[in-house]
């Protein structure tokens, strides 16, 4: 009987420990960590190089931390421009670039040009920032000049569109960006930061 009791107590202990371990595992492994699966075929480019999918041309100028004074200054200036412009749909300031605890705010400065000679669909949500350990992070927000903001807000870029976009990514503090991917084109455009 003692052995039986011991077995039952053992099973209960194992179940409790297992459940606690499961809870701990799930809670300490954020489900938002997504591994980027690079497609078999892609167009590759490097920092500062312009590349195009036939409709949109992209040039990644820089990825900088929000604590960088120049980045912060540009961010504030463009937010104010969007907020103060007459007849603009954007009525609010987004956010300061102060990160939440444990996070960092990275800003990708991208020159976007419509090379299609017609209105081109565009969503800043199609950018992906990939870390050097292969994890994918998705955009939070975008700011640009007032004329640009109106078009980006409607997800349609006029034929003559050309502007610098500042795309915000909130990432873990320890994240090191390795590449920026434009996923709206087929094949994807992968821009290396090195």
């Amino acid at each position, binding site marked *: 009987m003692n052995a039986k009791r011991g077995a039952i107590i053992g099973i209960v202990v194992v179940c409790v420990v297992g459940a606690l371990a*499961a*809870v701990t595992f*799930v809670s300490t492994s954020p*489900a938002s960590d*997504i591994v980027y699966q690079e497609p078999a075929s892609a167009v590759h480019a490097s920092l500062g190089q312009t590349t195009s999918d036939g409709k949109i041309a992209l040039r990644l100028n820089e990825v900088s931390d929000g604590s960088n004074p120049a980045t912060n200054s540009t961010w504030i200036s463009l937010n104010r421009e969007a907020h103060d412009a007459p007849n603009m749909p954007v009525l609010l*300031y987004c*956010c300061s670039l102060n990160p939440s605890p444990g996070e960092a705010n990275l800003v990708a400065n991208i020159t976007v040009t419509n090379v299609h000679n017609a209105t081109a669909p565009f969503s800043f949500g199609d950018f992906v920032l990939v870390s050097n350990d292969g994890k994918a992070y998705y955009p*939070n*927000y975008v700011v640009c000049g007032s004329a640009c903001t109106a078009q980006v807000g409607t997800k349609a870029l006029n034929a003559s569109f050309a502007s610098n976009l500042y795309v915000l990514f*909130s990432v873990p503090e320890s994240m090191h960006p390795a590449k920026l991917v434009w996923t709206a084109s087929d094949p994807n455009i992968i821009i290396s930061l090195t």
Partner: protein
Amino acid sequence: MLKFIDVAKSRQHGISASKHFCAALVMRIQQSPKLKLLQREGMSCITMDNRHSSRTRRYVAVALIIVIIALLLIPTIDALSVAGFLGDKTYLLILQDNSEIRSTGGLMTVMGVLTTHNGNIASLEYYYWNLGQQTGIVAIDGPESFTKFFGVNAAAISDSNVQYDFASFAPKMHSDFYNVTGKSVDGIVAIDLTAIEAVMNVTGPITTSDGVITSYNVADRLHYYAGSAERSDKTSLTSLLSTLTHDLFQQIRDASVPQKLALLGTLRTLEAEKHVLLYPSEGFLFRNAGGEPETRSGDFISTVDITLGTAKADFDINRAIDYRVELLADGSAVANLTISYANRNFWDYDVFSTTLVPPGAELVAAHNVTHAFKGPQVTSGEGLTAFSSRLIVAADANGSVTYSYKIPNIVHDSGIGHRYDLTVVKQAGVVRYGLNVSVHLPPGAKAISTENVGSNMVLTEDAHISVVYR
């Protein structure tokens, strides 16, 4: 000492009262078709080994049985009820944007009517309330601190959450929403952006037509659509929210057992921190989700902020509460309370701040360090005194207001001496406060015990402070 027995055996050999009690409880479960699945999934009783039985052990066994059944059964029934397994349920789902703080958690520009049926969403319709539109104006019948300060008696329904807590606001919202939309709901669920981030941190990302939404970007993306969508009904915002709600619901339903356990733990934390609020309180599982009015006794501080048209500022506001109370020999106290705001935004922060303190409190002095200030105004309510001020804190600057006041009869006799209790109530939606509390005893008194007195504490839920002295 303990062993599991099944009901049949307990009835065959059933001698002890505890076993009969256990059998009766489980038979009631068996007779309820809605609860049979619980019994099939291993509901059993624990009792004491017969060879060691005694009256005391039987009582212990009965108590254990009751506790285990309650722990398993009651939350399960609550969850099943909310999910629509025990009859369809319709909820008013309020998204409180806690980056624009309001009394009950945040600005309520988006609301949805959600009906659950057998664990699925049977229907979901979101509403966007444009602050400029003239529809959805509702009467405001208090609190006096707000109506007197601003001289108003009506507001847009999206901005009508001016009561001091969700429990006071929800019944009014229940009837206001019916009057405005003609839709009747069984209850109200209010969640803020902090809650959505925390839940998505467990459930994982959601892919929408506008890209991937994760716990890292969900708040800013919702703000982007709220600000950039051209149409007054904000179709892109409400359609994104519909996708998020449906997919989150499905992810939660299909989650693995460890994920469900993690989610339950997350929800309990969010409930304690007032990022998830439910009216009416649903039984045991959601008993603390804001559906019941808070009981205030002893000394208390409850700061209730409403931001005034300063955009999505509150995630970059660091709040702190500094409280110094001097207890006097006659049982009264002299208090100095400073509410501070560190504004890390690049624009000014405009806030209407009301601080609730015990009834009978007498304001002696107030001073402020702000860009602009209006107040203080003193009003009284049921069981409280309210100090209200409007502060404008300049961009990248600190601002504060300090109230000095007397509190009568705040110390009570306990068996071994005198006892002072303080509750610091966390406002729903606010992520955290810094908290510093110092308690000074009457001359000659000696502390016997103290709880949570000190500096640099972080307040994420209600806090209780106590000092016993003689």
